[in-house]
């Protein structure tokens, strides 16, 4: 064994003892702790959401989520920035690829609308069922990925993608600010009526925000994918 792999091994063994101490000292909770039981009892009266995790993500820890969306926004912008300098000359891109098979092309045509619809369903129902904006957005982007796989020469409008992304982000921030004016604070979902518990139009602004997040995340993933696509064969 060389020293190059020996030193990390020793280090990780020591780090392992730290983790082991954590592991040994860990006893699972018997009951929900203070914070969790607050969410268990107050989520419904305060936010009207069925999915407690969604309520936490969109409302209670909404600032985190705004940051999270910003992380993706930032990543998309930087990936664009990093790869912009190595863009392929126009018209030449995609030429290095063999055409994809009939099966993939046809399958794509059939599946993409369904995937997009499913994505929209997931982010619009985030407050009721497992799922939400991030998951829905990822599904939408996976549709786009499929299209790119089927036709590598296909180009999407960066401008459209970035418009969707930015408007969704901007509206998200404005909704948050409206919460400061019309409700209890930044990103308070009660700027809209809480509605009928368990229905699609309930939980105040949560579905709206999750739709925005879905659009934004979908656009951001798409933007990263197309940026990568633009550069793939610029040798």
């Amino acid at each position: 064994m060389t020293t190059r792999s020996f030193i990390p091994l020793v280090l990780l063994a020591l780090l392992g003892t730290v983790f082991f101490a954590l592991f040994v000292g860990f006893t699972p909770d018997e009951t929900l702790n203070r914070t969790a039981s607050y969410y268990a009892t107050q989520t419904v009266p305060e936010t009207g959401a069925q999915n407690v995790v969604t309520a936490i993500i969109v409302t209670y820890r909404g600032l985190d989520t705004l940051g999270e969306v910003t992380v993706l926004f930032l990543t998309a912008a930087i990936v664009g920035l990093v790869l912009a300098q190595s863009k392929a000359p126009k018209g030449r891109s995609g030429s290095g690829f063999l055409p994809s098979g009939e099966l993939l092309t046809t399958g794509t045509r059939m599946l993409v609308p369904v995937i997009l619809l499913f994505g929209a369903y997931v982010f619009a129902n985030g407050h009721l069922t497992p799922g939400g904006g991030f998951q829905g957005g990822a599904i939408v982007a996976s549709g786009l990925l499929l299209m790119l796989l089927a036709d590598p020469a296909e180009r999407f409008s960066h401008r459209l993608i970035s418009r969707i992304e930015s408007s969704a982000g901007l509206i998200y921030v404005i909704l948050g600010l409206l919460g400061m004016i019309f409700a209890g604070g930044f990103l308070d979902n009660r700027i809209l009526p809480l509605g009928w518990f368990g229905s699609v139009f309930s939980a105040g602004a949560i579905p709206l925000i999750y739709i925005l997040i879905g659009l934004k995340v979908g656009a951001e993933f798409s933007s990263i994918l197309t940026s990568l696509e633009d550069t793939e064969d610029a040798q």
Partner: protein
Amino acid sequence: MMLSQIAMALGFSLILLGLYGALTNRDIIRMIVSFTIASTGVNVVLVSVGYLPGRSAPILDEAVPVAEAATRITDPVPQALVLTAIVIGLGVTALMLAYAYRLFRARGSLDISDFTELKW
């Protein structure tokens, strides 16, 4: 051993495994993959901390009435946190890949020990 402990042990092992890979592989792409393994480990640890034995997911529908929520659901907070952690991990991974692309373009190499002109 309980489920949450098994999950946690697995998570910690993944972290150590990932870090070992990241510290010993010189290839940048392999390093990035190792880091994703380690972040997955972190996410598993995160979720396992919030698990309460015998309880169900924190979604209040017919199965878990609102009134019984406090005694029936697992801790929702780590689940919310893990989503954020996943997304952030994804962002960093994408960024590292983009960097790897540019580094390869600049030097024609993906060996981390080739990028040491800044030192001392």
